[in-house]
C-alpha cells in the first residue's frame, strides 16, 4: 500500500471517489503536484537576499509583505541542472506544518482535480528526482504527474544536518 500520512486524503480507506486538488508546476520536463491546501500563494520572482553558509539549495530569503521567508530552489534541491530564471519562473509559497517558505519552480501550470484513487505509489526508478520525496504518481491522459511529499522535500532536520 501507499505510504501516507494519517488522515490524509490518500488514505486508502477513504472513499475512492474522494477528490484531490493539486497545484501542478514544471521543473524541466517533469510535472509535479502539491496538495493545494499546503499552497498559500504563487508569486513572480522577486529579489532574493542570499544567506551565507545556508544549505546550497536555499537561495536566500524574501520579503513577503513584511515577513521574512526562506526560499528553496527545487532544481538545486533535486540536483537538476540550473536554468536562468525567466518570465515564467514562479515562487510557490507553501505552509509546511506552520512554517512558511517559498519554492522556486520553472512554471506553474494549473490546478488539477483528481480522484484520490488515480494516484499510485511511486515506481522504484521514476525520474531524476530522488524517490524519497515522492508521495505518489498520477497518470493523466497523456502525461505523468509526480505528487510531492513536501515535508520530505523541505525537511527541517535535514537542513540542520547540512548546516
Amino acid at each position, binding site marked *: 500500500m501507499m505510504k501516507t500520512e494519517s488522515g490524509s486524503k490518500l488514505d486508502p480507506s477513504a472513499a475512492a471517489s474522494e477528490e484531490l486538488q493539486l497545484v501542478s508546476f514544471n521543473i524541466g520536463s517533469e510535472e509535479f503536484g502539491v496538495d493545494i491546501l499546503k499552497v498559500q500563494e504563487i508569486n513572480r520572482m522577486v*529579489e532574493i*537576499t*542570499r*544567506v*551565507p*553558509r*545556508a544549505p546550497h539549495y*536555499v537561495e536566500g*530569503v*524574501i*520579503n513577503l509583505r*513584511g*515577513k*521574512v*521567508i*526562506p526560499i528553496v530552489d527545487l532544481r538545486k534541491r533535486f540536483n537538476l541542472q540550473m536554468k536562468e530564471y525567466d518570465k515564467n519562473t514562479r515562487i510557490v509559497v507553501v505552509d509546511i506544518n506552520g*512554517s*512558511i*517558505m517559498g519554492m522556486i519552480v520553472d512554471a506553474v501550470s494549473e490546478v488539477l482535480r483528481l480522484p484520490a484513487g488515480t494516484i499510485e505509489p511511486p515506481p522504484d526508478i521514476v525520474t531524476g528526482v530522488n524517490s524519497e520525496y515522492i508521495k505518489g504518481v498520477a497518470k493523466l491522459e497523456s502525461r505523468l504527474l509526480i505528487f510531492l511529499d513536501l515535508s520530505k522535500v*523541505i525537511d*527541517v532536520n535535514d*537542513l*540542520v544536518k547540512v*548546516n
Partner: protein
Amino acid sequence: MTTDANLELDDMKEIIGDFLIETDELLHSLDTNLVKLESAPDDLNLLNEIFRAAHTIKGTSSFLGFEQVTTLTHKMEDVLNKLRKGELKVTPVRMDVLLESLDLLKQLVEMVRSGHIESVDLSGILAMLEVQMEGGAAPGTTIASPAATVAQPTTAPIRVMESAAKDQPASFDKTTAASPVRPGAEKKVVDQTIRVDVNRLDSLMNLMGELVLSRNSLVQTVGTINKDEVGGLHAEKLNQAAASVNYITTELQMAVMRMRMQPIGKVFSKFPRLVRDLSRDSKKQIDLILTGEETELDKSVIEEIGDPLVHIIRNSCDHGIELPKVREAGGKPAKGTIKLDACQEGSNIVIRIQDDGKGLDPDAIREKAIERGLGTRAEIEKMADRDIFRFIFEAGLSTAKVVTDVSGRGVGMDVVRTNIEKLNGQIELDSKRGAGTTITIKLPLTLAILQGLLVEADHEVYILPLSSVIETVRTEQSDVSYINQRPVLRLRDEIIPIINFASCLRGQGNAVALAEKPYVVVVGLAEQKLGINIDRFLGQEEVVIKSLGSYLGTTEGVAGATILGDGRIRLIIDLIGLFNLARRKR
C-alpha cells in the same frame, strides 16, 4: 502551612503570585535597608521603613496562612520595634541575627514559590531573636501587637497596613527599594503604578517594530515622489504628513521602550549586602558607593546583567581590596572603596566598577598566558599591558589558582564575558598596580530595535549593530601589517586583527585582498576588537530584527534579517558568531 481550601485554585494562585511579587520587593528593600542601617543606626526614617516592610510581610503571610513566615517576621518585628523606639541599640551582632532571619525568610518565601512547603526548624533563630529582644529591654515590658502601639516619633508618613487582607498594597514601587528614604515620596504611589504582563509589553514592542519599518518605508517613498506628477500642493501636504508620522513614531518608540525600562538600582540593591558579608568574612573594611541607580535599562538587559556584576564585585572584594594592615602599610586608608556607577551615554549604558585595591599584575598574567600557550613568549612579552589584561577573560586562565597565586582577579571572568557578549556589550579593563582596577561595561540600551550601520561587501549589503561599532576608518595599506600572514591594523597604539567580511561569513577562509585605501569598521565585543574590511559604507538605519525562521535560524554570524525602507531584506550580523568564525579562521 495550610491554605484556605475553599478558595478556588486559580484565585489562590493569583493571590499567591501577587504575594510573591510584593514580598520579593519588600525582601529586596529589607536587604538594602538593613545594611544601610548599620552605617546609619540613628536614622529613624530608615528604621520605620524597615519596620513597615516586615510588618506588611507579616500581615499578608498570615492572611494567606503561611504560618512560619508569619512567626518569623513577627519576631523580627519585635526586635525592630524596640530598635525603633530606642529601647535597643543597633549592634553588629544584632544586625547579624536580623540578616540571618532575613535569609531564612527568603528561603521560606522560595518554598512558597516552588509550592513545596516543608516545615523548617525555626526554633534556633527565634531563640536568637528572643535574646536580642530581651537584650536591652526593661524586664516586664510586654510586646503587644506593634501596629497598635506604634508611637510615631517622626513626621515621616507611616503606612501601616491596617487591612492585611488586601492583596495589592502596592505601597512600595520599585524605586523605593533602591533609593534612600524620601519622606513623603510614597504618599500617592498607590494609584500610579500598574502591573502589566510582560507578554503584553512584548507584543506591543513587536507591533512597534513593524511600525518603525513601515515608517521607514513611508519616509523613503515620500522622498522619491515626483512633484510634477502629483502636483506641488499635494506633494507638500504628503511631505508634511510623512514628517509628522516620522516624528510621532520616534516619540512612540521611545515611550514604548521606556515602558520596558527598569532602574538598574534593582540590580544594584543587592550589592551592599554582598559587600558587607564578604568584608566581614574576609576581615576587610570595604565601602561600597553606588551612584546612578536611577539609570534605566531594558528589562531583558537587567535580567542578564546581575550575574556578571556579582562576579566582578566579588572579585574586587576577594582579590582587589587588601587587608587593612596591608593597605595602611601601602599608604592607603584602611578602608577600601568600591565604586559602582551607571550612566547613559547616547544609546549605550555604561556601568563602571572601580576599586582602590592592589590592581592586576601584568607580568604574572603574561607568565600564565605563556604557560597556557596563548601565544609565543616573544609575542606575549611584546604586548601592551592593556592587551595582556584581556587574557583574564579567557576561560581556563580565570581559575582560582591563578588568582590566588598570581595577582588578583579572574574567577568567573569568562562568565562575565559570556553574559556581556550575549547582550552585545563591550568590556574594558584598566588596572594600575597598587592603585586599583576599573572595569567598564558598555551595553546597548535595548535589544529589540537597533541602530544599524549599512555596509557593502562583495556586492551584498549587511547591517552591523551600531552600538558595537567603535569607529570606522579609511586606512592606508601601510598601516596594515601581517602577523603569521594574518593582516592586522595598527590603529594608534592598538593592534587590531582584520577580517574580510564576505569571505569570513561564507566560511571561505580569510583571503584578504585589501584595496588601495581599505575601509575598516572596528567593532567591539566584550573585551575584544575586530576590524572588518568592507567595500563601502551605505548609511545608517533603524532596524528591527526578524528571525530567519527555523530553517535558517541557526546560521552562524547572522542574527536575523530586517526589511529596509525600500522593502529589501538585509541581513543583520551577529557579532558573537562573526568573532567565532574569525577565531576559527585565524
